[in-house]
């Protein structure tokens, strides 16, 4: 199959060579771990432990707070120290369960299922829900909800998002290199839920070794295939990925299921496999600590809840003074003002940069060059939208399809006048969506 892609997009410096060749290393957390009750889209989880309780690794510590929600599990054995608001990567204070690890990592029992094909769809979805699986690419949408579309028979594609288009990140890459079998098994489980669907692994062509390996692994799987994708940001955006793989387009008001698609990221599929096959809830994830300021950029398998400071220490700390620390990738990640925050189900990287390009340059006048239009994967006109946003023109903003913005940041990246286009557009989008909810 040839390379496929979408229209628009940009080519930022990819920085993956810093950590690409570093095998995933298990990292045992020390001291205190923090589990925010809201690390997914939907209702926050409800704590079911109390301060002073002893907990085991894998024990449920918070129950899903509704259908669109997800339970949370302790990733260590130890004692509940506090239930209190703590700062999370996006900057909010979120009520969290704080657990002091005893360092022994004693696990609670898990129920294995040798023969997954004997399980019913309801059983599988329940196992996924009870394993606390959410979209681990960043959005954190509860996976059991995603796998329960209104018309399951209309799902034709299960797309594994193996694009990893964010620069610097290599956690998905390492998963694919080291444990591609688990990814394939995760896909097999999801395909069992949707008998009329095909499974497609969409991988950018800068990861040729993963393309080869997965092609080899799936050569006898009649329902699975590998689709090489052009290396371009944001190839791993849900709408862009669906377009590249299937040629179908969805807009902001549609779900992937409306186009007959379900998209799951690499980590999520592995978590589905661990949850269904071994009954092991989501306790660990792969995580990249990288950037030109880091002494020893590398990939870790971390216990969710581990503090960022500890991860930075594990990468031998900073070699150069960092001007900017980012949770996630440089295009859509969140800038941190402090490393004293916990990792969650959806955090994939800590990026430490010696240069802050976002504030380094002075913004000058827009010259109407149209680079933002060329870059926009949604075919919007970001310079106009940012103007409308800055002048508070909500009507014009909507008329020029501002609400379709996927917030990928390609416009700001390419702008020669160094305007903060994405920032203005995102802010306006939030205001309009808030207005709509009020009505």
């Amino acid at each position, binding site marked *: 199959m040839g390379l496929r892609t979408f*229209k628009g997009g940009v080519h*930022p*410096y990819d920085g993956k060579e810093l950590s690409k060749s570093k095998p995933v290393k298990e990292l045992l957390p020390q001291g205190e771990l923090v589990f925010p009750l809201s690390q997914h889209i939907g209702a926050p989880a409800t704590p079911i432990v109390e301060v002073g309780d002893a907990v085991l690794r894998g024990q449920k510590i918070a129950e899903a707070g509704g259908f669109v929600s997800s339970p949370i599990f302790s990733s260590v054995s130890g004692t509940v120290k506090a239930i209190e608001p703590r700062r999370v990567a996006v*900057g909010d204070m979120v009520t969290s369960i704080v657990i002091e690890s005893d360092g022994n990592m004693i696990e609670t029992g898990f129920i294995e299922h040798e023969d997954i094909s004997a399980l019913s769809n309801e059983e599988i979805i329940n196992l996924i829900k009870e394993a606390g699986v959410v979209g681990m690419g960043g959005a954190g949408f509860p996976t059991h909800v995603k796998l329960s579309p209104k018309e399951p028979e209309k799902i034709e594609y299960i797309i594994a998002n193996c694009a990893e288009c964010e*620069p610097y990140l290599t956690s998905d890459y390492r998963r694919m290199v080291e444990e591609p079998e688990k990814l394939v098994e995760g896909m097999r489980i999801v395909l069992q839920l949707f008998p009329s669907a095909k499974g497609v692994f969409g991988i950018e062509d800068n990861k040729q070794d993963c393309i080869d390996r997965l092609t080899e692994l799936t050569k006898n799987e009649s329902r699975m295939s590998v689709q090489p994708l052009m290396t371009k940001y944001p190839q791993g955006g849900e709408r862009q990925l669906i*377009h590249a793989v299937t040629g179908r*387009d*969805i*807009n*902001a008001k549609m779900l992937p299921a409306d186009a007959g698609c379900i998209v799951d990221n690499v980590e999520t599929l592995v978590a589905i496999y661990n949850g269904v096959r071994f009954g092991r809830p989501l306790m660990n994830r792969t995580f990249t600590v990288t950037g030109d300021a880091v002494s020893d950029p590398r990939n870790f398998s971390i216990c969710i809840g581990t503090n960022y400071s500890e991860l930075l220490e594990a990468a031998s700390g900073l070699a150069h003074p*960092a*001007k*900017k*620390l*980012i949770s996630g990738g*440089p295009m*859509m*990640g*969140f*800038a*941190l*003002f*402090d490393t004293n925050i916990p990792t969650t189900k959806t955090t994939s990287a800590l990026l430490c*940069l010696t240069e*802050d*390009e*976002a*504030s*380094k*340059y002075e913004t*000058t*006048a*827009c*010259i*109407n*060059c*149209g*680079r933002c*239009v060329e870059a926009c994967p*949604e*075919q*919007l*006109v970001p310079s106009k939208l940012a103007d409308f946003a800055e002048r508070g023109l909500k*009507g014009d903003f*909507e*008329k*020029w*399809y501002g609400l*379709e913005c996927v917030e990928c*940041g*390609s416009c*700001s*990246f390419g702008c*020669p*006048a*160094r305007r*903060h286009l*994405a*920032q203005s557009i*995102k802010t306006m989008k939030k205001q309009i969506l808030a207005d709509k909810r009020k009505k």
Partner: protein
Amino acid sequence: MSNLLNVTSSPHVRAKDDTQRIMLYVVISLLPATFFGIFNFGYKALILVLVSVLSCVASEYVFDRVVNKKSTIGDLSAVVTGLLLALNLPSSLPWWMAVLGSVFAIVVVKCLFGGLGQNFMNPALGGRVFLVLSFTGAMTDFSDYKGFADTFSGATPLATLKAGGSVDTMRMLIGNIPGTIGETSVIALLIGAVFLLLMGVIDLRIPGSYILTFAVFTLLFGGHGLDMNFLIAELCGGGLILGAFFMATDYVTSPITPMGKILFGICLGLLTGIFRYFGASAEGVSYAIIFSNLLVPLIEKITIPRAFGIVRETKGGEK
């Protein structure tokens, strides 16, 4: 709190190209035509180029000082304006007229409307048209041209054509003909245009639709039927190539929407054709471009691109 970490909204990285670098690319792309002009017309052309560029930059500097704005000459856009204006002047023009044109272009057309990015009309063309209307004789006097070897009648190729004469299209490609400093050599201009295309500064939407529309218009209404010699002469002459690739593509005064760019090019082609074949003058590129500049807001309004995944039925911000 850790010490002085920057917190900003994503994205946290930026591409290398900035406004200054883009303007520099445009200046570089105009150099082949500039050097050919100086070679073709001699030291007077060189003086006009220097005078125009310097007075454009100086006008912007002084204006910024007078209105207490931070100086914006560093973005090099005034250099581009000065160079383009010079390329649109006949080499025999008195230097002080070039100064007047530059001041008009920068101060009246650009700075009074808010500076770079806010002007609604191409500053260089605004300056040129100001000079054509003010000093018509000096601006349309091309008798200065002596030619390389043989002598050449003083009229420009298009004027010759309009009067019913015939022209040598090979000379028009090379550029050893009378005309403004930068418009004569199609080859030198195209070298610059290819450079701009390769550097991603411009795309073919505007020049392509402009030239194509004008070619079709010429075949239909030019009065010479399928005479290819006439068509090529019309395409090469009158600053059409200079206008199509370097002035119609001016970011600020052309539409930002992809469809709008094509519509803009079609407008340019039609207007140039009308001005040339039905008007009194043999030329029309400058007027076509500044007229179309005025249509840009309207063109953008009717060419709002449909966002990804929006189907035609639900067009417009429904709900």
